[in-house]
């Protein structure tokens, strides 16, 4: 609405610096006041309007308290209530009715922007399924399944369908839209329609157990052409291993307990408890943004996941020889 994106960012700075000694100079990628879409910026506008109004009201009340302090020595009216009544009815009854009516109308006008997209109004549907503690991402109509990284095309209304495989989670990418809970037995939807390419971080925001804190996700907004290419890649079965080490790694994957929980399409591994690893090598992070997806951190993760994400469902494989684990890493990283 009226406040542009840049304006929003600038105002965040002013508010943060002005109101508190501790300024957050860093990353505001997950900030509510840094909207990248129409619904998110409608919400930010609503926020700034409420913030301004709230500050005026707060100042008024502080003014009354200061007045009381300044006049503390003077005798009062002696208990005559007529003066106070006027202020109390004006400030406590009449003014709130006016202010709240304006706010209520504002709220009703913003609500359609953040609602689920009407059927048929979107060009692409993405299924996101919350798990303890990662996000399963599916593209209906294709074989593509990935985790924690949601790719969508820019300037395209996307119907995001939010479901859960276990407990309640909440899908939240603040710069793109409001959050939406993932509740057993229910199918919730929101719209993602990002005008610009980029990476938009998000995080589970309903307490979902031990690793609620490490359940991050990223929405990667690509140009429509890049997105189509990416989707076609993801829909393909896994790449066959090419080096002996990768071959050994695949063997380990299928014979150690990995395949009980993970799927690699095109192999006998069809486990559903953990993320689909068919194209794990193409992802930027592992363990729901807990670690960067590099061979060394993948090696560490396989060795002892509990060190990085205590409580994670994945067991450690320190019992496997280091060379075996290295082979496994080589195989997984080859799955681009």
């Amino acid at each position, binding site marked *: 609405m009226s406040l542009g994106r840049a304006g929003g960012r600038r105002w*965040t700075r002013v508010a943060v610096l002005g*109101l*508190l000694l501790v300024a*957050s*100079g860093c*990353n*505001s990628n997950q*900030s*509510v006041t840094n909207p990248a879409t129409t*619904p*998110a910026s409608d919400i930010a506008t*609503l*926020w700034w309007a*409420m913030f301004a109004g*709230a500050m005026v*009201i*707060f100042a008024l*009340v502080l003014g*009354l*308290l200061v*007045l*009381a*302090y300044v006049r*503390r020595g003077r005798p*009062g*009216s002696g*208990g005559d*209530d007529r003066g*106070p*009544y006027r*202020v*109390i*009815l004006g*400030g*406590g009854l009449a*003014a709130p009715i006016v202010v*709240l009516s304006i*706010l*209520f109308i504002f709220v009703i006008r*913003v609500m359609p922007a953040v*609602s689920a997209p009407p059927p048929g109004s979107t060009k692409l549907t993405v299924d996101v399924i919350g798990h303890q503690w990662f996000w399963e991402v599916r593209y209906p109509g294709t074989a593509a399944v990935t985790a924690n990284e949601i790719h969508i095309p820019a300037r395209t209304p996307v119907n995001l369908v*939010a479901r859960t495989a276990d*407990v*309640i989670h*909440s899908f939240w990418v603040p710069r793109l839209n*409001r*959050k*939406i809970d993932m509740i057993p*037995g*229910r199918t919730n939807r929101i719209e993602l329609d990002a005008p610009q390419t980029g990476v938009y971080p998000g995080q589970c*925001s*309903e*307490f979902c*157990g*031990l*690793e609620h*804190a*490490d359940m991050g996700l990223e929405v990667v907004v690509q140009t429509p052409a890049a997105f189509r290419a990416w989707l076609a890649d993801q829909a393909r079965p896994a790449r066959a291993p090419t080096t002996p080490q990768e071959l050994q790694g695949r063997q380990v994957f299928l014979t150690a307990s990995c395949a009980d929980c993970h799927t690699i399409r095109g192999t006998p591994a069809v486990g559903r408890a953990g993320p689909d690893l068919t194209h794990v090598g193409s992802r930027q992070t592992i363990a729901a943004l807990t670690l960067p997806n590099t061979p060394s951190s993948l090696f560490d993760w396989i060795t002892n996941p509990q060190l990085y994400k*205590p*409580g994670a469902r994945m067991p450690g494989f320190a019992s496997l020889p280091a060379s075996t684990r290295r082979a496994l890493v080589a195989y997984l990283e080859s799955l681009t």
Partner: protein
Amino acid sequence: MTAIQPPAPAAQERIERLDRIWAERPGFTGWLTTTDHKRIGLMYVAASLVFFALGGAEALIMRTQLAGPGRHVVGPSTYDQLLTMHGITMIFLFVIPLSIGGFGNYLVPLMIGSRDMAFPRMNALSFWLFLGSGILLYASLLLHEAPNAGWFNYVPLASRRFDPGPNIDFYTLALILNGVSSTAAAANFLVTIAKLRAPGMSLNRIPLFCFAILATSFSLVFALPALTADLVFLELDRKLGFHFFDAARGGDPLLWQDLFWIFGHPEVYIIVLPAFGIATSIIPTFTRRKMAAFPLVALAELLVAFIGFGVWVHHMFATGLPQTTLIFFAAASLIIVIPSGIQIFAWCMTLVDGTPEFKTPLLFIVGFIIFFVFGGLSGITLAAVPFDQQVTDTYYVVAHFHYVIWGAAVFPVLGGLYYWFPKVTGRMYHERLGQATFWLIFAGTNITFFPMHISGMLGMPRRVWTYPARMGWGPENLASTIGAFILASGLVLLAANLVVSRFRGAPASADPFGGGTLEWSTSSPPPAYNFAVIPVVTSAYPCWDADDRAADARRLAAGQLVLEHGHETTTTTPVDGHLDDVLAMPAESIWPVTLAAVCTVGLALVISSHYVTALVSVAVAAAVLAAWHAVEPRSAA
């Protein structure tokens, strides 16, 4: 305003008779069997402050863990137990027991001119049940099996499938026990305020603190059953395999949320209303002016409680309910601002129009007004549906509700601790240390909770045991942690002030501050029977009516309304406060504490799945109840 005159010889004799009639067993067993509302109130205060210390320690551990990104002071398993226990402790074991059980018990009979609560033994039972629920909960923490699904305990995270240990069973059964305790306490307050008011205390002369307790009690009576039902459903699901919340079998996880918040939001007002009551007690005393717009303030207290029942879905705005469902609750969440606004302006205008003297209790009330306005304003933003859908379950919400239930609900309680300290102990607290402590606590509160607004707006979800450095939430969290320790040091000073003053403070008169309500018309500390003569009142600030109090003294000498022949108090009509009966009151009894012990043990048996033995304890409880009611209060011959 009124000083206690030395009683005439005839009056002295009557007072000695009352002393004998109302004397209770001395020593430790006296505390176990007491039915004196003041002693029960003090036990509530003591127990809830112990729980407060525990809940505060939990908070400090959490803040230490969150001081910087990626720290590992505690792991997620411990952290989740700490955060859950912190919430449960502060709500069910600290604020409510302290403000309603402690302040309410001690003050309501004194303020309405009665000699005790309507049901003294049930009052004792309320306390012991509350203590039992607290002991159960903390036993679970000692076993490292404490509730760990957050204080609102959403299913299916709290279901047997995802939380198979006894953690949630402790939560469920301890809160049922706690709920029974609170329901009994609320019923007691309702009947006490309806029936035991001093003659002449019509509806329009009930002290505003008692109006607040009345509103709170109404809320408790109607809100707690929703929680009880919810807990029963959950326990049936967990222990016997029912399907109330199992989506695969026709149940609905949102049913838990609906029922929880039908209780949970009125609960927020239950927490904050007694604080309003304390504020409306302290402000008139220190401004030497009656509360401005008294009828509207009384009404506003009741309306907050009432409309509070119609806002619960604002905790569920992000669950994907139809927007037409949400809007009912958005409307009510906005309109509830009006009664709050009326009170805020009434407090401010009383300060402006009176002659305020900013002593420690009043300072805490000023702090309370600031926090309540601030937290109220952030509350309005959460009633705006789309904004709530953006920031719910983030630290913004944590900031908001700590401004409200720490800043607004507990500050008056802290002020009240100072204000009624002379009444309870007969000694004065240290005024200058009190004021310094206020500033420390006020600063600590802001430094702790204000930055949380920002970390929430920057996208930090609540209930995370840690956060990665790349999110950039470190500075805000460090500030919060520093603030928490400042806050804690302020609270330690407060405790030190009161503990030392208890033994070394200057002696306090009956009415050191010139208060307007009846508790200031009796000695400090008050005798077991509260008033040597049942006072007759003609205004809402009877202690400022010197003629009436002089008339009381004359009635004492003449033996009218002294009730010196039995363990008795008067009852009056509920609306207009006309005298209608003299009632024999039950004396001390061992059965309430016994019954509470049996109930607590019974629930522990259910938690450990010893169902048959638990059934035996039900039979024992029935027998205890029969024995209890075999002892009847008797009027004087």
